[in-house]
């Protein structure tokens, strides 16, 4: 049985002006130790899905349908007190901006020991020792001295390492990383991704990596889901996704990233148009207005995820990308970028 099983998750935001359908039916299974990526543009609902699973949606958000099975429980049915035992202990989450995601007036050691005392029942001395140890594991030099420092005394990359330390301190079964590298310099990004890769192996934990950057999933995730307008539109093992992007949106994403070694005159190939407003129920494929492969059926009937190519590759499209339009390079070349 899968470690985490999400079925038909729906999340809506209720504001005075409108209701936003942020997540419109997301399903996936996550096995123990598996690394899974969720790729999509800003606003497609990828972060919201995770927040919903953990019960930490912003005030206006509510889960309106679906099930999130973790072990033998449905997380969505738990009361907050029970969920709190899961959060930070069995499932941990790290966020995008380490500058603002750490409490500026608390020492970072404290911010780590507070999870240890709460979830592992450690006393102060043990927790401190453990905190120093985990800081060392994530690559903070001089951990013993640095444990008494404040967040503003660290650089961006170091702060993200501290966030990761906080997250893995209780050896969670699942780590959710929401855009962990987006706010960092490119060189630091690679370091952090390496760190995540290493820790995932050492801890044997599952990883959900959320990002808008395809290069990030290429190097880290075994499987990748592409999300658009609140739904998964394609899911496949990562190398398969890069080799045969069957959904026009995925293809568009791959083609729209500029390449250093491209010919100077080669034009950038962005996806025309803009993502739809999520304020109403929609019929038909949500990508259709921007899709060069759209058909009449695309506009009228919402496509469901269906098997294509291999048994692990699913795509939600009435008119998937034909073979001749598939790109030539492999995901390894992608990761190298």
């Amino acid at each position, binding site marked *: 049985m899968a470690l985490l099983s999400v079925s038909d998750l729906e999340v809506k935001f209720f504001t005075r002006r409108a209701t936003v359908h942020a997540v419109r039916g997301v399903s996936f299974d996550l096995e123990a130790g598996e690394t899974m990526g969720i790729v999509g543009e800003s606003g497609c609902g990828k972060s919201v899905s995770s927040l919903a699973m953990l019960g930490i949606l912003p005030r206006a958000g509510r889960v309106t349908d679906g099930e999130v099975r973790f072990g033998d429980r449905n997380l969505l049915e738990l009361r907050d007190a029970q969920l709190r035992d899961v959060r930070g202990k069995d499932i941990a989450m790290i966020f995008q901006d380490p500058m603002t995601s750490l409490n500026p007036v608390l020492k970072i050691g404290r911010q780590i020991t507070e999870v240890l005392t709460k979830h592992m029942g450690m006393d102060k001395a043990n927790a401190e020792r453990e905190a120093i140890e985990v800081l060392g594991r994530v690559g903070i030099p001089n951990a013993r001295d640095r444990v008494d420092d404040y967040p503003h005394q660290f650089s961006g990359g170091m702060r993200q390492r501290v966030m990761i330390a906080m997250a893995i301190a209780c050896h969670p079964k699942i780590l959710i990383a929401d855009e962990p590298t987006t706010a960092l310099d490119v060189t630091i990004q690679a370091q952090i991704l390496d760190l995540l890769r290493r820790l995932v192996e050492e801890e044997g934990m599952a990883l959900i990596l959320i990002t808008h950057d395809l290069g990030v999933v290429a190097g880290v995730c075994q499987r990748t889901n592409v999300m658009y307008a609140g739904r998964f539109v394609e899911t496949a093992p990562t190398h398969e996704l890069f080799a045969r992007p069957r959904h026009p949106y995925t293809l568009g994403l791959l083609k729209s990233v500029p390449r250093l070694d491209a010919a100077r005159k080669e034009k950038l190939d962005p996806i025309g148009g803009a993502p739809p*407003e999520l304020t*109403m129920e929609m019929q038909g494929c949500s990508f259709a207005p921007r899709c060069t492969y759209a058909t009449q059926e695309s*506009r009228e009937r919402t496509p469901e995820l269906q098997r294509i190519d291999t048994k692990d590759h699913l795509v939600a499209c009435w008119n998937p990308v034909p073979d001749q339009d598939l790109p030539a390079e492999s995901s390894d070349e992608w990761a190298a970028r």
Partner: protein
Amino acid sequence: MSIAEAEAAQISLERPSGLWRDALDRFRRNPGALVGVFLIVVFIIAAVFAPAIAPFDPGKQVGPLATNPQGPSEGYLLGLDEQGRDLFSRIVYGARLSLLVGLVSVLVGLAFGLILGALAGYLGGWVDFAIMRVMDLMLSIPGLLLAIGLVTILGRGLFQIMLAVGVIQIPIFARLLRGSILGQREADYVLAARSVGVPGRKILLVHILPNSIAPLIVQGTLAMATAIIEVAALSFVGLGPNDPRFPEWGNILAENANRLQESAHLVFFPGLAIVLSALGINLIGDGLREAIDPKLKS
């Protein structure tokens, strides 16, 4: 409906709008702000049309002299004072003074404050230092005390009082504008303007000032409310205007503060007038603040 139809519907919902029209819309939808506008309009009408609204001459004795003046009664809407004058008329005419003081003192504070703030912000260096130190000094004396000091020296004339109350507002405006200028001096659009050769003065007037107006407008309205209350406070302390042509709410209140039991109405109604006018202005100021930048939660 299909996606395309939905998108089309969405676009038609959004009218083209500018910065100020958005703000005005938000203001109009704010119930508090509308209440504020209503209150102030009432007072403005009272001030402008005082002769028509007030049933009696505010300075004339129209009823009996009494140590125990009557409260609201037959013929006298809010009662009489101990000199037999009609309270309602005095309050209506009092609106003239309060609004006048509010307006003039804020203008004084704004004018000087803007000049000083602009000089400090744009010239920087020792000019900035000197001006800011003087502002700090002014702020180190609590407002009312400063006003008391000024009025003691300058005298109790109406103009002097408005000047004094205006002067204590100067540091706030100066700081506000200076802060705004400093914040924008390094802004990209200013650098862009400078790089194409726009002279400093022009940048200040045409680019920076308009972007600084919003918080100044908000502060200006709040300063008006403060001014009205400060003048009343000066009256309470015995330094208020004593021009018989202009009854002052605080004055009426102060004269009767010792005789609460006998003349409660002479304390209550002028006080109420002060509260309602200040409240109206504060509501408008808050409404403006939210209209101009709804992201500000304070």
